[in-house]
């Protein structure tokens, strides 16, 4: 018995670190570094700065951010949930198109939305001109709409471009959960109208919470739109405190305030779906039978469903296409734009590969060695997704700049060569930021893909003489290719659209499509910006198509 006990002891303490686990832990450490840095910087530097930030910047910026998030949340919830119910509960001409088209605003980043509407809705723009013409006014002095450069403008713009997150999660909930419960409540005497309020809405609450949390994180992350619209949010304050006042500790302190908001959002989301486990354990999915609409009601439904698409996608996209055509006819395609496109694609592609490899390592390590260590690594590695880009950028800049300086100093001392800003200057810091921010997308997607592969496949491969690495190549990779492709596409497009971290971490004279657009909009020059925005939107449609197709195959399977 004692010899067995000794054997057990050695086994318990044997930690088998496969390359996958090592990579997963490394990814977790990389993701943790920026957040830890922010926390340390903000608490360590207790000079006069705190008081300045607290007195002059934080109250106004926090108030603005709070109002913006609240308004955006309300609009996104109403539009997203309403649209999801409309296409689930009713059948009318055009419903099939609405189903996927309602996702299209996802292709438009908030800063492009704001950029487009600033011009479209300007007092001298097409819309206001048209209204004046119809009403018989001749000058903006006689009649003008309220200025879009205001809080209400920002709330509307954010709400109508971000509602698809709520639409997506809520619709999935309605599709998989609603049918049985709706039928049961009909037999219990609840009318069609009552079902939405008494069954569907309470049922969808966890899904709405997930969607709204995503909406608010996106809104919090935004730096471009808020600035174009003149709203001094926390994110915008971080940016100006750093760039204009070159006050890094001050920026870090505001970043802490943002992290608190993020944590509050996560807690809210967890709390709202604390009972979701019970909800999702319902029986197999079956779609509810929609009510057929004809005549005027069908037209009204179509109009209601089309409205968010027109505001959130068709409007800005049409504007961008027209402006881009004008620009190409006038000046052709500028070399600066081509350079920016090449830059964007290159950096995004490199980041995508890094993110996919690390994401796969995290997901596969958790599968190979299920346990607290690998699970913890997975959780930590996905932290970055919730951290706004500006905050992440500051958290990365501080340690990376210190590293660059130290390395440069050492190299000069020992070899007499200057390495300069090795990581910052080469753009590696940018790839680091993209990786930290989007790792959750790839690890989550790949994890979901792997989880569809039964563990009996792993065991079959192992008992048939294959090592875990051989099983990976011959079983897991081929079988999770769709998940990998989808994750890669999502990451690539997100990198390409990313503005706040790119603004702060890009090397000198490096422009991506997003920063090019930002620079021109900020200067008010509007030269290549429309074309750059159009490229971003067109590529951004790809993952929307993917999402729409995923939704469709889900529906087919039902």
């Amino acid at each position, binding site marked *: 018995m004692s010899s067995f006990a000794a*054997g057990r002891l050695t086994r318990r303490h044997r930690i088998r670190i496969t390359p996958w686990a090592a990579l997963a832990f490394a990814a977790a450490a990389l993701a943790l570094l920026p957040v830890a840095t922010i926390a340390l910087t903000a608490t360590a530097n207790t000079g006069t700065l705190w008081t300045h930030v607290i007195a002059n910047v934080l109250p106004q910026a926090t108030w603005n951010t709070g109002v913006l998030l609240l308004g955006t949340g309300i609009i996104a919830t109403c539009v997203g949930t309403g649209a999801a119910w409309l296409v689930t509960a009713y059948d009318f001409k055009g419903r099939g198109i609405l189903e996927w088209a309602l996702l299209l605003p996802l292709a438009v980043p908030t800063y492009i939305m704001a950029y487009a509407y600033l011009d479209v809705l300007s007092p001298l723009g097409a819309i206001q001109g048209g209204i004046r013409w119809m009403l018989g006014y001749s000058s903006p002095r006689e009649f003008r709409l309220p200025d879009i450069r205001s809080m209400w403008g920002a709330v509307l713009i954010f709400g109508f471009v971000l509602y698809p997150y709520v639409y997506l999660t809520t619709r999935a909930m309605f599709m998989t959960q609603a049918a049985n419960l709706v039928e049961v409540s009909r037999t219990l005497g609840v009318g069609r109208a009552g079902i939405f309020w008494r069954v569907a809405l309470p049922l969808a609450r966890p899904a709405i919470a997930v969607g709204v949390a995503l909406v608010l994180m996106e809104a919090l992350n935004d730096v471009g739109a808020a600035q174009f619209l003149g709203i001094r949010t926390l994110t915008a304050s971080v940016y100006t405190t750093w760039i204009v006042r070159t006050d890094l500790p001050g920026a870090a302190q505001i970043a802490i305030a943002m992290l608190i908001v993020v944590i509050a959002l996560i807690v809210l989301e967890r709390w709202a779906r604390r009972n979701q486990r019970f909800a999702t354990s319902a029986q197999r999915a079956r779609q509810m039978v929609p009510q057929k609409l004809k005549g005027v009601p069908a037209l009204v439904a179509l109009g209601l469903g089309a409205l968010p698409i027109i505001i959130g996608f068709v409007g800005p996209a049409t504007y961008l296409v027209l402006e881009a055509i004008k620009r190409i006819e006038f000046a052709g395609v500028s070399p600066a734009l081509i350079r920016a496109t090449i830059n964007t694609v290159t950096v995004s592609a490199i980041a995508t590969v890094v993110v996919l490899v690390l994401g796969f390592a995290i997901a596969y390590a958790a599968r190979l060695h299920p346990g607290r260590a690998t699970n913890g690594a997975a959780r930590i590695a996905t932290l970055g997704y919730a951290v706004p880009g500006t905050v992440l950028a500051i958290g990365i800049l501080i340690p990376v700049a210190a590293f660059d300086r130290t390395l440069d100093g050492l190299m000069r001392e020992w070899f007499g060569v200057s390495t300069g800003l090795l990581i910052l200057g080469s753009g590696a810091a940018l790839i680091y930021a993209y990786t930290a921010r989007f790792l959750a997308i790839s690890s989550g997607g790949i994890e979901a893909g792997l989880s569809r592969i039964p563990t*009996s496949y792993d065991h079959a491969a192992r008992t*048939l003489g294959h090592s875990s690495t051989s099983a990976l190549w011959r079983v897991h990779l081929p079988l999770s290719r769709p998940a990998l492709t989808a994750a890669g596409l999502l990451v690539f497009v997100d990198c390409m659209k990313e503005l706040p971290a790119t603004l702060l971490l890009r090397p000198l004279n490096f422009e991506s499509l997003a920063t090019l657009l930002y620079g021109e909009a900020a200067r008010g020059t509007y030269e290549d910006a429309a074309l750059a925005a159009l490229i971003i939107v067109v590529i951004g449609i790809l993952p929307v198509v993917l999402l729409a197709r995923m939704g469709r195959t889900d529906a087919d399977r039902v």
Partner: protein
Amino acid sequence: MNEKPLPTLSLKSVTRSFGSVMALNAVSFDIAKGEIVCLVGQSGCGKSTLLRVIAGVEEIDRGAVTLAGETVNGEGIFVEPEHRNVGFMFQDYALFPHLTARQNIGFGLNGMRRKDAVARVEDIIARLGIASLADRYPHQLSGGEQQRIALARALAPQPRVLLMDEPFSNLDRGLRDTIRRETIALLRALGTTAIIVTHDPEEALALGDKVVLMHKGKVIETGTGDAIYSFPQTAYAAAFFSQVNKIPARRSGDWLDCALGRFPAPCGSSGPLQVFIRPQALTFSDTGAEARVSGRVLLGEIEEVTLDVDGLDEPVVMRTSARCGLDVGHSVRIGVDPKDVLVFAADESARSALPRGQV
């Protein structure tokens, strides 16, 4: 010296717990070469965990697993599953969906020379008569066809032991008997050592050379199907392998008295006793105990009759092929074949191997 040949597989006090649940509690048994063993028990009894332990996809906490004299788990040793040469056939077959049937079968022949591997695959395909299926993908195969591909894949590397986890449970009833017979015949022809896990008592009795009954992580009984059915050593085994009427009994001298009559008492017993009477041991008899018919269910060739007997709380179940044409409420007299009476201590947790009284 006539040394006993080394067992192909030997388990010694194999113990494995998940949190506070003892999935395997000091499990020990040996399997000789060419033997086919049925591992049977209710779901959650630990039989699947035991298979996984033998395959090496699960590690043990204590004890030792030995394959042909070589320890593969225990005493600080752990041999990875890919180095054990143990075949595993999964309940869901786990055929790789991206590979054809032929590629699936060849999946385990990685280390072999290509020519030999191809020959081995063709040989096993011919043996199982599945040439027409070889180039199809798993989703193009029916359940029975998938089962045969999975069997072929597990057998192709010529494993030392073949482990089969509920290999027939995913098949339709009609198909199941045919495939079961063919599979066992093939294993016998190849001389394969195999462990078949099942939750079905009839399947367990029918299939193997040896039956291992597990309950809550422990081995309750081991023996041939005949022995374990006819002479169960525990009340649990008796009740597991067939339906029984449990009837409390009182000892008076050399006899046991119960509501259904008087039987010879086992020697050396103390404490309260109960007799187990299988439904088919009950007969209609003019001299037996009085009973009233309370229900009838036709099961096909036989009929199940439930009877209320004075002095018993529970109705007694009888199975008979005599079409008696009785209706509910009729009074009858029933007798018991004393050879089919099993006696156990009333406390079933006690290991109550009571010798049978002489008739």
